[in-house]
């Protein structure tokens, strides 16, 4: 039976029975936003099973998808049902995107789920979509949930930072550590991976990282988190060092279980989601005010140099906030 004409609730029912296309359709609804997305979110929110969320990020070309591929194979081997959300940037010119390098499972029937999405230009949309996707995966019984992003933009960094465990991947010899530092990735990493560690320059990257971590120790970050992020050396093509990464993730999961760290992170995540939603609502209201008759009048005064931008904004903001 095709999914044509089914309501979100009906699609969800099918997804819960294990229909992958139905799960895929729920994700499309989330991605498109609007009422459909809100409905899916309301339906799935109470069904949370608390799957572990792993964020994987790093500079372009760091070998993230190879790593994610191995991670889900490992998860399947341990009897888990992993799901992956791979986020790729949309072309700023056309709005289109090429979502390449979809992870290949040797067995297409493997019990895992892989979805690629494009950023679609507006960061706010992505900030809303990702928690929605996580919720759908979680409701459908997938876990761990892996979110893969290119660690270049603030939104991408924020998204992975909101994971339970954030893994930052780097390459040897390309100044990745410095770049990652600039992008704010070092601040959010729970685990570092130096990929292609058999290449020249791998130890230098490790050295750079250790120095930076030492410095962050000086700033008190380590005290705050109670943990110094480990650096895992990975030979991605040969698949060595991988067991160590898996173990480090398990160790981190255990670490999150001690005390209230996991709860704290999830609380932050929900708070960020609500914040993004408020921002979206406000953003829409702002547009409405600007498009309104009153908005037009104020902007016209501005054009005629009868008003300053600051006072125009204040006047419209008063209108917006109803005070």
């Amino acid at each position, binding site marked *: 039976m095709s999914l044509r004409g089914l309501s979100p609730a009906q699609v969800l029912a099918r997804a819960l029975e294990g229909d992958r296309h139905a799960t895929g359709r729920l994700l499309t609804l989330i991605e498109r936003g609007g009422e459909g997305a809100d409905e899916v979110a309301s339906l799935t929110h109470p069904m949370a099973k608390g799957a572990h969320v792993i964020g994987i990020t790093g500079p372009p*070309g760091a070998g993230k*998808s190879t790593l994610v591929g191995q991670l889900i194979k490992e998860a399947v081997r341990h009897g888990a049902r992993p799901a992956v959300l791979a986020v790729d940037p949309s072309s700023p010119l056309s709005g289109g995107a*090429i979502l*390449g*390098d*979809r992870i*290949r499972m040797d067995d297409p029937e493997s019990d895992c789920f892989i979805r690629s999405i494009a950023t679609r230009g507006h960061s706010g949309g992505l900030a809303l979509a990702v928690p929605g996707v996580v919720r759908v995966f979680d409701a459908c019984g997938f876990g761990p949930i892996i979110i893969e992003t290119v660690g270049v933009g603030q939104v991408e960094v924020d998204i992975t930072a909101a994971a339970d465990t954030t893994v930052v991947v780097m390459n040897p010899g390309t100044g990745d550590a410095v770049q990652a530092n600039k992008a704010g990735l070092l601040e959010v990493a729970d685990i570092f991976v130096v990929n*292609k560690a058999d*290449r020249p320059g791998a130890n230098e990257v490790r050295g750079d990282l250790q120095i930076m971590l030492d410095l962050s120790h000086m700033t008190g970050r380590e005290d705050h988190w109670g943990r110094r992020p480990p650096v895992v050396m990975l030979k991605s*093509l040969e698949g060595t060092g991988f067991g160590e990464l898996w173990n480090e993730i398990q160790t981190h999961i255990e670490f999150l279980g001690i005390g209230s760290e996991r709860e704290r992170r999830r609380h932050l995540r929900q708070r960020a989601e609500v914040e993004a939603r408020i921002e979206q609502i406000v953003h829409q209201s702002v547009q409405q005010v600007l498009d309104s008759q009153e908005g037009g009048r104020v902007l016209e005064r501005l054009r005629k140099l009868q008003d300053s931008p600051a006072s125009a904004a204040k006047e419209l903001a008063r209108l917006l906030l109803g005070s």
Partner: protein
Amino acid sequence: MDQEQSRAQSRKRWQTEYDRAKLRDADWETMSGVPVEPIYGNAPYPGQYPYTRGVYASMYRSRLWTMRMFAGFGTAVDTNLRFKDILRNGGGGLSTAFDMPTLMGHDSDHEWSIGEVGKCGVAVDTLADMRDLFADINLGGVSTSMTINGPANIIMAMYIANAEETGTERSRLAGTIQNDLLKEYQAQKEYIFPPRPSMRLVTDLIRFTSTEMPRWHPVSVSGYHIREAGSTAAQELAYTLANGFAYVEAAVAAGIDVDDFAPRLSFFFNSHSDFFEEIGKFRAARRIWATWMRERYGAKDERSLLCRFHTQTAGVSLTAQQPEINIARVAIQAMAGVLGGTQSLHTDAFDEAMALPTEDAARIALRTQQIVAHETGVASVADPLGGSHYVEWMTDEMERRAEAIFAHLDELGGGSILEGVFAGIDNNYFTSEIANAAYRFEQKVNAGRRIIVGVNDFTEGDSEQRDLLRIDRTVEENQLKRLSNVKHDRDNSAVRSALDELVEVAQDSTLNTMPATIKAVQSMATEGEIVEALRGVFGTYVEKATM
């Protein structure tokens, strides 16, 4: 005064070389009876370092380029008949095309092979097929070219085993096997194992032929497929030569002296439609190779410096619209190859954009070369365009662009072109650069900034339907029967132990896999079985689906 003296000396040296060369029996004059010199212009002359103007002093006055036509389809028996036909008609070179399953290391009974057996070339599963392919042919008296890469060593082993069974020692075998794995990852995509193990197999064959098969060319470094995949001329030039340097570095690292194998490396380029760009590319290729081999790799033997190449006209330039006009394209491209100094040439058939060439179309393609050779007069003078301001500038420009790419690869590889090429494969440098170039060209065609006659201008209505060659299914049935008979008749325990031995050798990178591969094919292990055994050691390459 010094300069003048050295010029005179160059001229004298050239003259000595030229006088020593045996010339063809032909009149060296124009069709109107004007006598012409073998060369014009200044030193360095053809046959002199850096060989920009040609690898030999007398060029086509001694020997025309080899008019090599790629053939082969159906079963080994069918192709054998074709071969004997060629030999009867005075041809001394046999060129073998293999079908897709054979190229990918799969047997004819593999689930993917259905519908592909014998289709774009001959199917070779076991030594039995190799016996059929060369039955009643004196392998000591011919030169064989085999276009295969991933399983090259296995096919080579079968060729050697068959020759020795029929009384020809391996040292007397002459020919070329393409065996250029690097361009598979960059462009043609017919790979089996990951790059590093593939490189080890290539090096094994280089080492094996350098000691046991002095007349065999173990690698034909091929830019043809890189260009077909959409690269620019400069990319084709640079990636191909970089791959050549990578093989040199790998063989030297394996302990082989550069002059022990470099003379037997050959090249294979594409000849496309932009006439002067192509000629500049060919001339630059010779200069770059000679310079790098001498300066960077310390080659002493003059033959190590020579970039000798085969050329094929650009299949990708052929249009399905108004296919007859492809004959004109092919003629122009063939001319560029000859003016660029190629050692051999394949001209495409005009109907190849749609399917395998029909016999008529293949004949016209061959005749096109013959017109260039015998009617146009271009073969009378070596490097007739040398000294043209435009051609010399284009040659320099091609070289500059290639050098910029070498510099990038050298940096990527931390001072090693070999490592740079591996890194470029790993991070999709080659594939994305090639695809971007192809897209840029396509956009220009789309915008009408580049005219393709018959496609985006000068179009006509629907062209008439032409007869296309189709292979019937009996080929596949016969081949499957052949394979199952061989498997039935052989001693499976011998197969098992031969494969076990090969695996053991493969695990030790200091050993050469060739002798064990020969033993394996002699046990009648199939190509697919040998490949599977090696996959166990080397793994399987899966390309990243990036753009």
